[in-house]
């Protein structure tokens, strides 16, 4: 019996040392991305040219996480990580990189210097949309609506918005679309109902693409999308951007790098550059 135990112990110890000595203190980049159908990933992949609209060329060994917060957390604990996340989710525990020398902030997005951002769009069918749906959208882009967008941590695209006044309409309004919009849309809905107490607003968070389908088939009155409409969608839907969301490129706090070129971001996310030593 002792012999068996001794053998197991010895095998365990030797295996451990073999592996740990073989393990290298490397500088390999941990690439963190989101699942295929995430709106954030869709926007990011397109903006940094990981996807040409047909084929996605993301590094195959990239870690896939299921939410923005998880991406931030994994970046927080991994010294070699790089990820991207909505600017609203950036905390003090991670570092945001300037891309091509431009910081990711409201001002730079508005003046067009920071290129990695996406709009949050509310859309209605081009024909046959209800007055109520249009009224809700006019609230979204109004001064009051835009103020809520800013307090929620996003960027208001419309500085000179007009003031919204209650329409006195009544009825039921169904919205469907992106999960990324949830935080901001719940607040907007609350405030809108204060103006128009006779309106019931129901929101389903199904993802941008599914939301567009629902809206076109008449299952919902308004679609909320966390990406710009594609060409064929634009033909059938009227879209109104009510918020902008910068997508920040984030790294671990201990990463010495402060800025990165967009070309380098593309190469890292394609897996063409694997080591932090090659990042200039």
């Amino acid at each position, binding site marked *: 019996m002792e012999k068996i135990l001794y053998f197991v112990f010895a095998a365990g110890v030797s295996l451990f040392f073999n592996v740990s000595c073989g393990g290298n203190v490397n500088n390999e980049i941990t690439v963190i991305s989101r*699942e295929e159908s995430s709106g954030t990933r869709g926007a990011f992949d397109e903006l940094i040219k990981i996807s040409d609209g*047909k084929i*996605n060329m993301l590094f195959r*060994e990239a*870690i*896939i996480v299921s939410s923005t917060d998880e991406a931030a957390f994994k970046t927080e604990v991994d010294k070699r*990580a790089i990820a991207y996340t909505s600017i609203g989710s950036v905390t003090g525990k991670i570092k945001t990189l300037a891309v091509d020398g431009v910081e990711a902030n409201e001002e730079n997005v508005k003046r067009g210097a920071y290129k990695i951002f996406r709009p949050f769009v509310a859309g209605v069918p081009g024909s046959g949309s209800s007055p109520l749906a249009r009224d809700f959208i006019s609230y979204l882009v109004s001064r009051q609506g835009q103020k809520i967008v800013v307090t929620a941590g996003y960027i208001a695209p419309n500085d000179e918005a007009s003031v919204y006044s209650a329409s006195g309409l009544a009825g039921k309004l169904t919205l469907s679309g992106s999960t990324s919009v949830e935080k901001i849309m719940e607040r907007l809905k609350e405030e809108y109902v204060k103006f128009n107490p006779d309106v019931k607003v129901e929101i389903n968070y*199904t993802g941008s693409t599914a939301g567009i389908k629902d809206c076109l088939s008449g299952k919902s009155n308004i679609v909320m999308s966390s990406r710009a409409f594609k060409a064929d969608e634009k033909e059938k839907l009227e879209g109104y951007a009510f918020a902008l969301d910068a997508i920040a490129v984030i790294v671990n706090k201990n990463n010495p790098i402060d800025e990165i070129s967009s070309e380098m971001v593309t190469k890292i996310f394609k897996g063409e550059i694997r080591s932090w030593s090659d990042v200039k």
Partner: protein
Amino acid sequence: MKEKIAEYFFLICSLISIGAVALICFFIFRGAYPAVQTVGLWPFLTGGLWKPTDIPPLFGIFNMIVGSVYVTAGACLIGVPVGVFTAVYMAKYCPQKIYAGMSQLVSLLAGIPSIIYGFFGMMLIVPFIADNFSGNGNSVLAASIVLGVMVLPTIIKVSEVSLKAVPKTYYEGALALGATKEQSIFFVLIPAAKSGILTGIVLGIGRAIGETMAVVMVAGNANILPETIFKSVRTLTANIVLEMGYASGTHFDAIVATGAVLFVFILLLNLVLGVINKGSKTAGT
């Protein structure tokens, strides 16, 4: 009359659970059928590329099948020895004083929600592997360790019960013949409780292969065929939970089909369980 009422009541209850299984079976395979029809069964099962949003899309789950098998095997390597030996300790060595507390703790282990295991893995195991071995820690190894701990309570409880169910005479007979305590346990007690222990292990495997949340948080979920245990891996369950929320059309059907494959795995496991229990009518079952 009274007995009849009770009988029907029990019958209805059992029909509910059987009906649930039948319904799940029916809907998962019906839901999977369109995807298998579009993609083809063989390309679906053996394809190495899963690119649902590409044009044209690719739906191959081979890497994930292998991933699920790797991670489950890893969990067994860790969970089975630890679990079985713990059961031996609890059944034969453990002083009465410690036993109550220990038994409670094992039960507690079973009750911990899987997301908590995930956090534990993400905060402790993943960084540990990244710092001490190669890679970034999100790996087959991390998932195996987390799952190995998660299957412990199942294996321990079932094994312990079956060890205790072995007639005392077996053990005492071995001792009387001059065997040491260890010899009696390993050469008499464990073989006698074999089918019970195997049942525990198979139930543990079932838990490991079906576990989702904890695995998603530590496995990295890259859709590759891992070459080493330090590489990332995506399991069938991870693939479902990652993309379920957004998917539509063929993509959605393909995810349901992924679920169907998982379901087949579970059915096979149950078949194995049936064979084990049928094959041996020894003590401990």
